[in-house]
């Protein structure tokens, strides 16, 4: 059997392409769903931490944020995913939403630290200038501090996105048919080990390259003010 015959057998005759398409879709869905949750959570936690650091009355909020970051960063994502699927959402029959939530909450902890470091890197004078103009703390945060912070941490956010995409390959643990699980399912059907793994690897690689390109375009756009 030539390589092309093998490809035809694996992906067409045995319906491998269907698994791949489904897996590709699920991987993208989980990645972007988790990314949105992660960014929102990350910004909220980072801002909450920023405010609670200067106000002793908000000690509880600070404690909650610290605990969240410590606990989530201390648990392997696979274990976290299993806990979410079998313990917290034990009655769920569809793993995809559970995976989105689990990956999102996981990513949020890392994003929070990223955003916090971004906020801390902005000169204190920026906040003071904004406040001296009469902007409230929140208006200053949203219009002056966060845009600059995000710009500075964009490369690191890119890394986090890439890590997240690749981490979703463990979603198969909770029976979500992502790209990785799809390739193992094809292997089971066809005993062809090489091509399904090669294809899924190539797809991951292509996705990462696209993400990197998109980010660098975005970064260039934001860099305009630094000429």
């Amino acid at each position: 059997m030539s390589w092309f015959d093998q490809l035809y057998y694996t992906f067409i005759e045995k319906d491998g392409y269907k698994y791949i398409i489904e897996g590709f879709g699920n991987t993208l869905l989980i990645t972007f769903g988790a990314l949105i949750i992660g960014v929102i959570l990350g910004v909220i936690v980072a801002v909450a931490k920023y405010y609670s650091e200067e106000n002793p009355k908000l000690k509880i909020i600070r404690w909650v944020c610290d605990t969240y970051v410590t606990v989530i960063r201390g648990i392997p994502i696979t274990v976290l995913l299993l806990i979410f699927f079998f313990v917290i959402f034990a009655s769920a029959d569809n793993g995809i939403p559970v995976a989105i939530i689990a990956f999102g909450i996981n990513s949020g902890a890392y994003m929070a630290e990223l955003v916090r470091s971004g906020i801390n890197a902005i000169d204190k004078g920026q906040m003071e200038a904004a406040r001296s103009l009469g902007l409230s703390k929140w208006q200053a945060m949203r219009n002056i501090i966060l845009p600059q912070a995000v710009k500075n941490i964009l490369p690191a956010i890119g890394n986090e996105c890439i890590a997240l995409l690749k981490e979703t390959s463990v979603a198969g643990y909770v029976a979500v048919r992502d790209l990785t699980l799809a390739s193992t399912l094809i292997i089971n059907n066809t005993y062809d080990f090489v091509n399904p793994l090669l294809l899924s690897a190539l797809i991951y690689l292509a996705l990462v390259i696209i993400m990197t390109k998109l980010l660098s375009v975005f970064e260039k756009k934001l860099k305009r003010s630094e000429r």
Partner: protein
Amino acid sequence: MEKIIEVKNLYKSFENVEVLRGIDIDIYRGDVLCVIGASGSGKSTFLRCLNLLEKVDSGEIKLSGEYLFKNEHKILEPKLKAAKAALKAAKKDKSTAADKLLLLEDDYRELKEEYDALYTEERDIAKYIGKNIDLLRQKMGMVFQQFNLFPHLTILRNLTLAPTMLKLATPEEANERALALLERVGLRDRANDYPNQLSGGQKQRVAIVRALCMNPEVMLFDEPTSALDPEMVGEVLDVMKELAGEGMTMIVVTHEMGFAREVANRVIFLDDGVIAEEGSPEELFDNPKSERLKSFLSKVL
């Protein structure tokens, strides 16, 4: 004359270092007040306290007759504690005469009443200020040593952000006003550039315009020319002179003695957290009374 800012008994310390130790001064409409003093004398801290960018420990600040800050109950605290301790000791000691005990009790009660009244009044003021601080700050424009322009926004947006966000002007009005003011400082053609494309002197002129766009009643300048190359100091001082000429009330922390002598109508010399000398520029520069001022002037002039 109308008082714009009244400061009474202002105290401020960082950790255990007392930076301001009882500042009293009234500033009238149209005043150009220059604050001079050695570094570490508390000049910048004083200015930042007026704007409540620093948390004041105790004292009183009024802006146009309205409290910006009032905290005097803290000063009473040690007295109250002492009276309480004295009363307790007297009660324990059985030999104390009844009338003396009564006297101490009266003392304590009086003090406590005064303290409670102040505490309630000041708590209400603090609450009111906490809610309205942003509104009150709008009346005071501030210019920083390091310019602190927003680097991610164009010059025009730097100027219009606050007025439009705070709904003081429509975007069109804000743009018009910003461009008119930029024209006056000779930077209209840079409206769509970003701050990092400007020189230091240009940045500081933009920063002054940014504060002016809010139509402030008072302008605070925190060493506006200290971060500039020498050849750019003049252009910034010119803008400030013009502003003073128009009758703007200004408080300027500065090392530019020439500017202070020429433009200010009042100068204060801060030394070790208090106003060591105060008067017209002629009085201070030509007839310094204290040794400290004499030695300071000999170093900077």
